Structures are given as structure tokens and as C-alpha cells.
């Protein structure tokens, strides 16, 4: 099999390798090209089932409810199976947490399934081995460990579900002093510890943004990457019902240093360096206490000149919104988290917006425990180390620190999906199955238990953690049985459904993907202010320049670094792909004489980084922000992604990795993985690197000197504030242009009139829709150079515009896709009728008729058409399994664009026709609409006056982009409303 993964130039039979080589042979003549293009029709063998299973109907899809394994948030998913293999993942609308939405990473998981670089077989001391040998080696070592009185350590992420945990517990009992350590690279360990101190149990509460009228977030990117972003986004959205009977919106204040996704969506955004935030938190606590007429429970650091007013405002708001406000903090710093817990307690949010009884299990790791483990390893007391779904050698502070300690273990058994930094050093390497390949379960939030059922038999010779541990303690039992047994014991008794038999209970759970049970009783000791002891007057102070670490929406802690869809997903804020970088504020950049792309040397105590600079508006001066999850072993595979031609530049040079790994540069401080540290040295190296971004120009304001008077800002985005909107529903609306045309409008749409509405107030820019569209419509990955040349192929892009001053910068996101104009400029100019209008209002692109003049694209005012500049590869034979058979893969030289997911429309129409029934509203969902956690996108039929779309398109916030050009777009946008918190604004 061609292991030139995702870069195999042969994207399928149509462009076989023979033709390619023949092309080379063919002379420099057009005739040569034509001749080279000839090929014999291929002869296909049809290989059907012997006995067809009921579920699999060739050419149609079946859906499996399951649980996402992209991160530990455990969102409910529906896996779309075609011919018995998964081709797409969508959110499970019934799921109590994610409720139908799914993030970009979750959607991209389906591609990882067909990654030919995944480990397929176990290996012992670097050599491929059979499981028997592995088992013998491991059990032998375990015996040895027991004899020598050494200890057994199991290190995992927070991923293991209830059954796996049970198996672990059972396994540990077999070995005296054995321990299970949990490690989250994106650690929330301080939150858990804080609650340990305050309530006597170590847990992370379940934050309920949907119930919160006032949200104060200290550097917690809850819409982007913090804990459970999809659930939070959905909740956040439902807490802002603008189109309700009485328009209301939660008021969201974000205090942060870098421009995060949450910050860019906040109603008010205070810019503060990470080491200032603790003081602000202290101040806020003191102010809140005073407001409530109490003496502050913590020392008052006094006002911070820049933010005092805002802090007072916020304190007042929080107090008025007792019981429905929420304070969250992203800092992995105990005192900060103690204050947060205290604030939520004193504001009576516990039990309301902060659920303590049914806590969240999505981050159970403890940083201290990992540090302890390393100490044990160094002491040589560990006879057996089992690492499952964790890569500390990659992301634990100190370059190679963990790897070094690990070598001192009697034996190290690593289970990993790819060869990675940790498995590299291990005695035994076990292949980790893809979450869609094995039976598993999860309990992201106490009482919400979900099943993970496999959608395909494993590609590799893999075993689950449960299975391994069982075998090593001498009993063999299938995963399915193990899970059923545990559920029968643990959850069936706690059921709150009427299910009488366990089989029904189980089947329902598998069928729906999850089941609600009564949360495990968890006695808490009452909150006690004395536990605020550690909250000293002054928090840690950084030098004049501090380095902040953050995860990106796409790669998170780097677990998705092998996924090209995510590598090429533009960062929601910077729009940069295929790289991480040192992001600095304009002032800081100017101060150091740096320009975008200059490579800087970031010197730290005992570590250093060299990264290209990106100048980010709205970032705190004196901070450098760098993304985690890059520079992962094996990403040099992408050196040949994208087209190859003599002026083309490789995505990464062979041997070079995608981005730089910032993990080892992190600092383990006061028992926690600190998310920032002091920079000792910061200087340009003189060299530069070109960064590929999908957006070159940042703002709706015209460049200085080119803007005609009073036309500095373009009317592309309608925005207003809540108070203005309450005063007048038409606030912020552009004047309706009148259109003059010589043409009579003679087209009626007899059956349907498909249209879309996009609510700019709801859209957070999370980019889930972008990947959803890519998966649904077979959009190729084109590589860094092509993106650099503005040739990205994404049918749906999210335009990001800044406005306002750097102090108070506001950001607007605008998903931009084919507007399916009723008077489409592209159609009129196509010479060969390759793009025409359907009688259902769709602007159709007829691929096999297109000759590729690009006139349509030139004439498109939205520039959403995408041209196949080359034969873009769709990866090797394995990768091609992910392609959606309903959507043709476009060849070189033709135009493509958003089709409103016409294949999905057709599918629904056929189903309706089979049942001789009309199509019901909302039955057709486009991929982007389906994936949106914030339900910002609505698709439907304008001919049905009762449909949601009809209502929205007649709503007061509706407007169409560039309507004055007379294109009559089918997509309506909804005014972006911000609750700036003026009088009457913050409704609490």
C-alpha cells in the first residue's frame, strides 16, 4: 500500500500512475498531453455480500450513535456509515451535553481513522511482536516487580471510561502499592484541587453557562478549548435568546492576555497580562464582598488603575445577578481557582450555575501526581510503567525529562496511536485503536453515561486498555462483555428510566448513544473560607515579558497533529495554517523591531524556542503567546502534501516538523503546569519564515490613505448593542438599497426555494462548520504553499474582521459561502452553461461541463468560488476510504463551490418520495448547519411560510451582504448584537 500518506500523488484510479509516467514520456506538445490522457475504461469486479446484514444497504448510509473520542469532553456523536465504513461524524442531537453540535476536531476524527501511519501491530523492544510474546513479557515483568517489591504505575489521560477505570482499579488491587496516575497536558488540576480544599472532594464542577446571566471569565477559553467547548458553546448560545419574546442576552466579560476565541466573542474584554489576572481576581473578590456588605475574605490588593472601573462595574453586576452569574478561571493556579470557587459560592451560584452534585469528569488529572511519578521513576522504584493515551515525553516540562525518567522503570509499556516521543523510548509499544474501532464507554459528567460503539472492525491488531489489563491479570473477556458487566453492576441500579430488564437498558443506551442515571451520591463538606488560606496578597509576578501557552482549537494538546484537515484549518483568530508562532501585541513587536514572520529567539530558564512572530491586535503588551500541540514527531510526513511543481514550496522541508513543540518549555510551578512563565531573552534572529494565512486583510476599514472620505468602513457586517436593539429592532441596519434592472423576473420556484440564514450573534467562529463541510464535500488538503498563494479550497470560510481600538477591540466573524444568488453574476458569464440556476433556487456548478475560464469566480463579489489549480491529491488508498461517495471528486482545471449540500437535499427528497409524504421543515440539514454547536446556521425552504427560515428571513435583524449589487442572495445574515452592558443591557 502506498504509505506516502495523504500525499500519494495518485488520487484514485482516474489518475492512475501509468498515465503519470506516460505523461513524462509524452513530448512537449498538446498532442502529447492529449495522448497521455488516454486510458482504457477500467474493468470493475463487483464483490457483494454472501449474506447481506440488515443494516448495510449498499449506497445508502446507516447511523450509529456513539461518543466522540477527539478529546475527553465526551460529546455524543452519530457516525455516518456507508457500505459498512464511517465516512462522517455528526453531533447527536439528543445528547444532553453537546446537543447535536460537534467541534472541528471531533468532525476530523473520521479522517484519523484512515491514517495509514497509525501503529498496526505491537512491538517489543523495537521489534514487531505477537501479542502472546507481549503478554508473556509483561506478565513476566509484573511477576518480577511483585517479587522485587517494586511498584506498578499506570499513567493515563482522563479518557478511560468507567469500565476501563474499573479494570484499572481491579488490576491495581493485584499489586501492592500500585497506583493509577492521570495526566492532562491541558491541565485543570488546580480547579480540582481547589474544590478538594473547599468541599473535601477532588472534582471539577459542571459549569452551566445556559443558566448564567453574567459571565466573568478569567482567561478561560470556554468557547474554544476549555474543558467542554461544544457543550459550553451551546449553553452560552441558549443563554442569549435575542429572538425570544423578550430579547435578552447574558453579559460576558472576558479578562485575558491573548486574543482567544472566547475573548473575541466577549461583550467586554479586559486585556491583562496573565500575572496581573490574579490581582484582578483578588480585587474583584474584595469588591464583591464589600458590595455585599461583608469584610473581604481575602486581602485586597487595591485598585488596578487600568481596570478599576470595569472591576467595580463587574462586582456590581455579579452581586445583582446572584444565583445566576458565573465566574470561571482558566489559570492552572491554585489560589486563583480557590478565589473562583469562593466567588461562585458567595454569589450563591453553586447549585445554580455551578453544579457540584453532578460534577464533570472530563479532566481528572493531577499534575503533582505526575511530578511524584517522575520522582519515583528516578528513584528506580517502579518496576512496571504502563502509559495509555498520554505522551508526557512530548508535553511534560523539560526536554526529554520524562523520557529520561521513564528509562529507569523496570519495563515501560506504552499504548499509542502513532509512534510518538514517549513510545520511542518504551520497552513495549502497543497500537492504540481509533475510538471508532473499539467498544468503550464514558461518563463526561456524573450521571450522563455514554456508550462508544465501534463503527468498523479495527484496521490494526489492537487491544483496549480494559482487555490488556484483564489478560495480564489472567482473565480473558471481550470488551463488550466487560462493559455490559460493569454497567449491570454500576449503572443499571442507578437507572432513572422505566427499563425493566438490563437488556432493554443496555440496548436503549447503545441505540441512543447515552443513558442518564442518577448521579453517584457525593457528600460534600460545607464551604469554608478558611480554605482560602493560600490566597496571598500578591500572586506570582513575571518579568517584563511573559510567555503564555495555549492550545489551538484544531490540535488541542497535539493529539491531532497527524490530521491534515486540522493542520490546514485556519486558526479562528489569526487565520494561519500549518504553523505555530510567537504571537505578540503590536506595541511589543514595535518595541523589539519585529515584523510578521521574523523568527524570534525566546530564551527561558533552561529552555528556549525559536518561532516566527505574528503581530496580534488585542493582545496584552509584554506577553508572548505560543500554541501547544505542534512540532509533534512524525509530522514531517507532510513534507510532500500539496501539489509538486517547480516553483512550489514544500509545506515542511523533509525531516522538518510542522511547527515547534512548546510543551517542554512549560514550567512546573508550585505543583502545577503553569500556563505562563517569564521570558529571559527575546530577540529577532534575523531570519524569517513565511506564514500562510487564509485572510490577508484584517478589517472592514479601508487602508489609510486609500479610503475615500466617510467611506472608511465597508457595510458588510451589521452590528449593534443590545440596549440599542431593545430601543429599536432595526438598530444598526443598513438602508435597504433599491435595485433597478432591465430584466423581467420571470422565474417561479414551483417545488422548493432553498435558503439559509446565518446569525452573526450566535456564530463564535469556532470553525466546526469548515471541517464539517470539508468532510461532507470531499474538499482536498492543498498544503501550506497553496494557502500562501490564496488557493485554499474550503467552500466555507469564516471571515474575521477587527474593529475598535486595541484597548477595546471587537471582533466579528462572518461565515462566507456561496450565496446562491437569485441573480447570480457567475451564471450569466459562464460561456458553456456550466453554472446555472435550479428550479429550487440552487446555484449549481456542473463539474463535467466546466472548462475552467474562471470568469464566474472573477465576477463573484463574494469570491467564494474555488478553482482546482492542480490535481489535488486525496491521499493514499486508505485515506480515500473517507471520501463521500455521494460527492464527485473534482479534477484539475474546474471550478467548484458550495452546493448547499445538494446531495443531502436529494437524499431527503428521495426518502420523502418513497414515503409519499412532503418534506418537513428542518429535515434537510446542510453539513455546516448540522455541525454548528451554536445553531447559528438555519437552512430551509422559503416556499413553506411556516418554516424557520421563512420566519428568520422576515425577521428584523435580517440583511443580505452586498445586496446593493443586485445579486439577490439566498443567504440572509442576522445583525450581530453585543450586550455591552449599558443600562438595561445586562439583564440579570
Amino acid at each position, binding site marked *: 500500500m502506498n504509505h506516502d500518506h495523504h500525499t500519494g500523488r495518485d488520487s484514485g484510479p482516474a489518475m492512475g500512475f501509468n498515465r503519470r509516467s506516460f505523461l513524462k514520456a509524452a513530448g*512537449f506538445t*498538446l498532442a*502529447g*498531453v*492529449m495522448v*497521455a490522457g488516454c486510458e482504457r475504461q477500467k474493468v470493475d469486479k463487483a464483490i457483494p455480500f454472501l449474506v447481506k446484514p440488515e443494516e448495510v444497504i449498499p449506497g445508502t448510509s446507516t447511523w450509529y450513535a456513539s461518543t466522540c473520542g477527539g478529546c475527553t469532553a465526551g460529546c455524543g456523536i452519530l457516525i455516518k456509515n456507508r457500505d459498512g465504513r464511517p465516512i462522517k461524524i455528526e453531533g447527536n442531537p439528543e445528547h444532553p451535553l453537546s446537543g447535536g453540535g460537534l467541534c472541528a476536531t471531533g468532525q476530523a476524527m473520521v479522517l484519523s481513522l484512515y491514517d495509514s501511519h497509525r501503529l498496526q501491530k505491537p512491538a517489543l523492544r523495537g521489534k514487531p511482536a505477537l501479542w502472546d510474546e507481549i503478554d508473556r513479557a509483561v506478565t513476566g515483568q509484573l511477576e518480577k516487580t511483585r517479587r522485587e517489591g517494586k511498584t506498578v504505575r499506570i499513567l493515563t489521560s482522563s479518557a478511560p471510561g468507567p469500565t476501563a477505570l474499573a479494570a484499572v482499579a481491579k488490576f491495581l488491587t493485584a499489586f501492592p502499592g500500585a497506583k493509577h496516575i492521570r495526566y492532562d497536558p491541558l491541565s485543570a488540576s488546580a480547579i480540582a484541587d481547589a474544590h478538594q480544599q473547599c468541599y473535601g472532594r477532588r472534582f471539577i464542577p459542571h459549569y452551566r453557562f445556559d443558566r448564567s446571566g453574567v459571565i466573568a471569565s478569567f482567561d478561560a477559553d470556554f468557547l474554544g478549548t476549555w474543558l467542554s467547548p461544544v457543550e459550553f458553546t451551546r449553553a452560552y448560545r441558549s443563554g442569549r435568546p435575542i429572538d425570544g419574546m423578550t430579547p435578552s442576552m447574558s453579559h460576558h466579560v472576558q479578562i485575558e492576555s491573548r486574543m482567544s476565541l472566547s475573548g473575541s466573542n466577549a461583550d467586554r474584554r479586559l486585556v491583562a497580562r496573565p500575572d496581573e489576572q490574579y490581582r484582578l481576581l483578588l480585587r474583584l473578590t474584595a469588591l464583591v464582598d464589600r458590595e455585599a456588605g461583608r469584610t473581604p475574605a481575602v486581602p485586597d490588593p487595591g485598585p488596578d488603575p487600568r481596570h478599576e472601573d470595569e472591576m467595580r462595574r463587574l462586582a456590581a453586576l455579579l452581586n445583582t445577578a446572584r444565583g445566576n452569574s458565573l465566574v470561571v478561571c482558566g489559570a492552572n493556579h491554585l489560589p486563583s481557582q480557590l478565589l473562583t470557587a469562593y466567588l461562585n459560592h458567595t454569589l450563591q451560584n453553586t447549585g445554580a450555575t455551578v453544579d457540584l452534585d453532578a460534577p464533570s469528569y472530563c479532566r481528572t488529572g493531577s499534575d503533582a501526581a505526575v511530578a511524584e511519578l517522575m520522582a519515583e521513576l528516578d528513584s528506580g522504584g517502579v518496576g512496571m510503567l504502563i502509559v495509555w493515551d498520554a505522551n508526557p515525553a512530548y508535553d511534560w516540562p523539560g526536554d526529554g525529562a520524562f523520557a529520561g525518567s521513564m528509562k529507569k522503570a523496570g519495563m515501560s509499556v506504552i499504548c499509542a496511536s502513532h509512534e510518538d516521543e514517549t513510545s520511542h523510548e518504551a520497552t513495549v509499544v502497543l497500537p492504540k485503536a481509533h475510538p471508532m474501532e473499539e467498544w468503550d464507554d464514558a461518563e463526561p459528567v456524573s450521571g450522563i453515561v455514554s456508550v462508544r460503539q465501534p463503527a468498523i472492525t479495527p484496521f490494526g491488531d489492537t487491544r483496549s486498555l480494559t482487555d490488556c489489563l484483564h489478560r495480564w491479570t489472567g482473565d480473558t473477556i471481550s470488551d463488550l462483555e466487560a462493559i455490559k458487566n460493569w454497567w449491570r453492576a454500576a449503572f443499571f441500579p442507578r437507572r432513572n428510566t422505566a427499563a425493566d430488564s438490563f437488556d432493554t437498558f443496555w440496548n436503549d443506551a447503545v441505540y441512543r448513544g447515552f443513558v442518564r442515571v442518577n448521579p453517584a451520591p457525593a457528600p460534600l463538606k460545607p464551604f469554608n473560607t478558611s480554605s482560602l488560606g493560600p490566597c496571598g496578597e500578591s500572586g506570582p509576578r513575571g518579568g517584563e515579558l511573559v510567555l503564555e501557552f495555549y492550545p489551538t482549537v484544531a490540535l488541542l494538546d497535539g493529539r491531532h497533529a497527524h490530521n491534515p484537515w486540522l493542520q490546514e484549518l485556519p486558526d479562528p483568530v489569526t487565520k494561519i495554517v500549518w504553523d505555530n508562532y510567537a504571537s505578540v501585541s503590536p506595541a511589543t513587536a514595535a518595541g523589539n523591531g519585529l515584523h510578521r514572520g521574523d523568527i524570534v529567539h525566546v530564551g527561558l530558564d533552561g529552555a528556549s524556542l525559536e518561532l516566527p512572530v505574528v503581530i496580534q491586535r488585542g493582545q496584552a503588551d509584554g506577553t508572548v503567546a505560543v500554541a501547544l500541540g505542534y512540532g509533534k514527531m512524525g509530522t514531517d510526513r507532510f513534507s510532500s502534501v500539496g*501539489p509538486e*511543481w517547480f*516553483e512550489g514550496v514544500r509545506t515542511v522541508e523533509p525531516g522538518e516538523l510542522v511547527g515547534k513543540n512548546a510543551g517542554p518549555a512549560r514550567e512546573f510551578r508550585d505543583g502545577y503546569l503553569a500556563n505562563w512563565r517569564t521570558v529571559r531573552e527575546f530577540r529577532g534572529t534575523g531570519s524569517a519564515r513565511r506564514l500562510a494565512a487564509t485572510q*490577508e*486583510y484584517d*478589517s472592514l476599514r*479601508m*487602508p489609510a*490613505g*486609500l*479610503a*475615500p472620505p466617510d*467611506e472608511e468602513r*465597508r457595510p*458588510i457586517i451589521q452590528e449593534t448593542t443590545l440596549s440599542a436593539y431593545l430601543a429599536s429592532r432595526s438598530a444598526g441596519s443598513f438602508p435597504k438599497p433599491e435595485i433597478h434592472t432591465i430584466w423581467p423576473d420571470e422565474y417561479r420556484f414551483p417545488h422548493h426555494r432553498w435558503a439559509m440564514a446565518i446569525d452573526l450573534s450566535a456564530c463564535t467562529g469556532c470553525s466546526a462548520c469548515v471541517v464539517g463541510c470539508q468532510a461532507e464535500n470531499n474538499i482536498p488538503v492543498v498544503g501550506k504553499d*497553496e494557502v500562501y*498563494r*490564496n*488557493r*485554499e479550497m474550503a467552500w466555507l470560510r469564516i*471571515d*474575521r*474582521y477587527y474593529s475598535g481600538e486595541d484597548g477595546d477591540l471587537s471582533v466579528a466573524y462572518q461565515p*462566507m459561502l456561496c450565496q446562491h444568488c437569485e441573480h447570480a*453574476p457567475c451564471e450569466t*458569464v*459562464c*460561456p458553456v*452553461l456550466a453554472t446555472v440556476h435550479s428550479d429550487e433556487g440552487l446555484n449549481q456548478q456542473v463539474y463535467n461541463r*466546466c*472548462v*475552467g*475560464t*474562471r*470568469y464566474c*469566480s*472573477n*465576477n463573484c*463579489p*463574494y*469570491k467564494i468560488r*474555488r*478553482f*482546482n*489549480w*492542480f490535481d489535488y491529491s486525496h491521499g493514499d488508498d486508505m485515506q480515500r476510504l473517507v471520501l463521500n461517495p455521494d460527492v464527485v471528486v473534482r479534477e*484539475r*482545471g*474546474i*471550478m467548484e463551490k458550495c452546493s448547499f449540500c445538494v446531495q443531502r437535499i436529494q437524499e431527503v427528497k428521495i426518502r420523502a418520495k418513497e414515503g409519499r409524504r412532503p418534506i418537513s421543515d428542518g429535515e434537510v440539514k446542510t453539513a455546516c448547519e448540522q455541525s454548528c454547536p451554536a445553531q447559528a446556521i438555519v437552512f430551509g425552504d422559503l416556499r413553506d411560510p411556516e418554516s424557520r427560515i421563512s420566519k428568520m428571513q422576515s425577521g428584523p435583524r435580517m440583511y443580505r451582504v*452586498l445586496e446593493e*449589487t*443586485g*445579486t439577490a442572495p439566498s443567504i440572509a445574515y442576522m445583525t450581530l448584537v453585543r450586550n455591552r452592558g449599558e443600562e438595561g443591557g445586562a439583564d440579570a
Partner: protein
Amino acid sequence: MPDVVSEIRRPLIGGNKSYGEVTREVCAPLDRKSSAAWWTTLSAALAMLVLGVVAVTYELRTGIGTWGLNNTVGWAFDITNFVFWIGIGHAGTLISAILFLFNQKWRTSVNRSAEAMTLFAVMCAGIFPVIHMGRPWLAHWVIPYPNARGPLWVNFRSPLVWDMFAIGTYFIVSFTFWYVGLIPDLATIRDRATSKIKKALAGFFSFGWDGSNRTWQRYETIYLLLAGLATPLVVSVHTIVSWDFATSLIPGWHTTIFPPYFVAGAVFSGFAMVLTLMLIVRRVLHFEDYITLHHIGAMSKIIIATGGIVALAYATEFFVALYSGNEYERFTFVNRALGPYGWAYWTMVGCNIGVPQLLWLKKIRSNVAAVFVISLLINVGMWFERFVIITISLSRDYLPASWASYSPTTIEIATLIGSFGLFFTLFLLFSRFLPMIAIGEVKGILRYGRSNGKEAGK
């Protein structure tokens, strides 16, 4: 015969020639062995051509991606070259048709080569719409022919289809026009040819012309008719080309003054190219008596005139943009002059408006070298005009998020060079194997300006 030169009508052809001399001198280059200079220039031109062929083949094999285009700038060098070459072509038709209708007798010494230039320029132009397609092997789909796809026809609302018809018609008619004019001269060559092959060939292609008075009469009639048809045709062709842009809605393209603006520009650049070529031909083939300073002067004046129109068009564009009150339109034009591509804009203005003003001076007009340089600069300027209109307008249109910049790749530059290679190759071959000057027509005006001819000329 006695030959007093009148004051009012200066003779168009110098050197007081007899019919025989005209025949001999014009046919001289055909009889001579080809010179070393000719061989060197030809091989140079061929080299350029080959370079172009290589570039185009690489593009066809690899994809349009080998050009510097992107999602925002879908056309740049390709269509710029197309419009440029079409423009060049226009001078030929103008000289042969419009000047004929206006009874400008001096045209006779240049029309043959000007028309040839038209043909070659149109050939060069015709290449680009084909190779700029993503799938050029399907280019024939632009032609509405009965087919098994429905039959699925073409979109007659698309300016590109109009282009196809306009360019096609233009080429065919120009060729017919040129060839009809060539027939009598071929007969002349036939009758004076010594070598058998030459006689046979000339004989075959001269259609058995014998100079009968009846034929001459009909010939004159259709010549007039063709001129009458070619005149609106040449105007329509560049009008339609300009509609490629005028009918779109990109600010900077969507402009109603484009048709006259483009036609004037075409004539402007065309005459510049005619001058460039004629000045060389005149020198190399010793046609000083046929292409006199009078001719150069006349063409220079046309250049000043058309250049003036072009200048006016530039000004009008800005005014209309300003006056329209359309912010996108306004921005586009400010951006043209002051934006990242300002240098291209100012090159255009300098070459098209600044330089030609020198031609007001008789001194310059009568200085062959100066005129030559100016004509070259004008061609540069006119190329940039098309680049400015097409590329700058596209690179920054409506949504700031989709703004992008453009820079050409080596392939594109090689393709441009190749088109010049093709043009010069063809012209050199023409200069070697066909009479560069319409013998018959020149004889017709030989008496012009010689006073004692009561029926001189006409």
C-alpha cells in the same frame, strides 16, 4: 516623362518612380537571397517561440496553478496579453478599411503589412483564451454545435461567447480582406517569376488573375464593400472585448465608457506597433521612398489623437468613480493610483499620456529614431493599461477578507515572450515571401501629386 511637383499635393511616393521600378523594388526582397540579419532575427524569434511552447505545455500538463493566479485574482497575464494583442491588431484593419473609406491615399504603402500584422496579432491573441482555460482540451465546447448532450448549447449571454464569435469573424474577414488585396500582386510575381516552383505557386494562389478590366471593376466594388464591413467590425470587436469587463460587476470593470475607451486604446497601441514595424522594414528593405516622413507624420498624428482619447478616458473613469458616490468604485480608483500596484498605474499614465505629447513637435515627428522609441514606450504603456484594469481591480474588490495580491510566475512571463516570438516569426516569414507593399495600389497613386497629370491619381 516630365515631372513638376505641385505645391498643394506633395507626391506620396518619392523618387519619381515608373511602374516597372515599383514592381522591381517591391519584389526585390523576394528575389534576393535571405540575408544573414534575417536569419539571425528569425532564429531569435524562433527561440522565443520555443520558450513559449515549452511554458505552455508545462502549464497544460501541470495545471493553471503554474501561473501566479489565485482565488481572488482569476485573470492576470493571460487576459492582459489577450486584450493587448487584439488591440495591436486593430491598426491594420483601421488603415486598410477606415482610411480607405476616408480616401487617405498614403495608406497604400503601409496597409499590406499592417493587415498582415493584424492577422498575426489576432493569432497571438487567440491563443490566450484557449490556454487560460482549466481544461483547454474542451475549448470546443464554447462553440454551439449540435451534440449528444441534450443538445446542450452555449450561453449566448456570456461575453466570452461573444468574444469567440467576434474574434473568429474578425480573423476570417481580415484574412479575406488581406488575401483579396494580395491576388493581383501574386499575379505580378507569377508573371515575372523565373523559377518554375515560384511560378507554379504564385500561379496557383493568384487564382489565375489576368488584370482584366471587368475583374478590376468588380474587385474595386468588393474592396469597397469589405472596407465598409470591416469598419464597424473592427469597432465591434474591441467593444465586445471591453464588455468582458463592462458587463461584470467588479468595481473598475463595470464601466460604461469601456467600449470607446478600449477601441481608442486599441487604435492607439496598434498604430504604435505599425510604426515600430514600419520603421524597421523601411530601413532594412530600403522602402524609404514608399514609407516617407509624410507617412510617419500622419501616423504620429493619429497616435496623438487616439492618445488624447485614451487620456480623456482615464480622466473620465476617475471622475465617474468620484461622481457615482459608489464607495467600492471610488476606492478601486484611489487604490489604482496609490495602492500597492500604483507603480503599474503610473507606468501606464507615463507611457500613454506623457510620452505621446512629444509628437506634437514636428522636430520629433520627423526624427525617425525618436518616433521609434516613443512607439515602443506606447506599446509598454498599453500592455500595462490592460494589466491595471484587470489585475488591480480584481485584487481588491468587495469583501476585504478576500483581498489578495498577485505576482506572475516564470511560466507566465515565458508565455508572454512566446507570444512575441510567434508574432515576429510570422512577420519575418511574411517579409521574406510576400510583397510587403501593395504593388497594385501603389501604382495607382504613383501619379498623385505630379501636376501635369490631368488624370493623375484621380
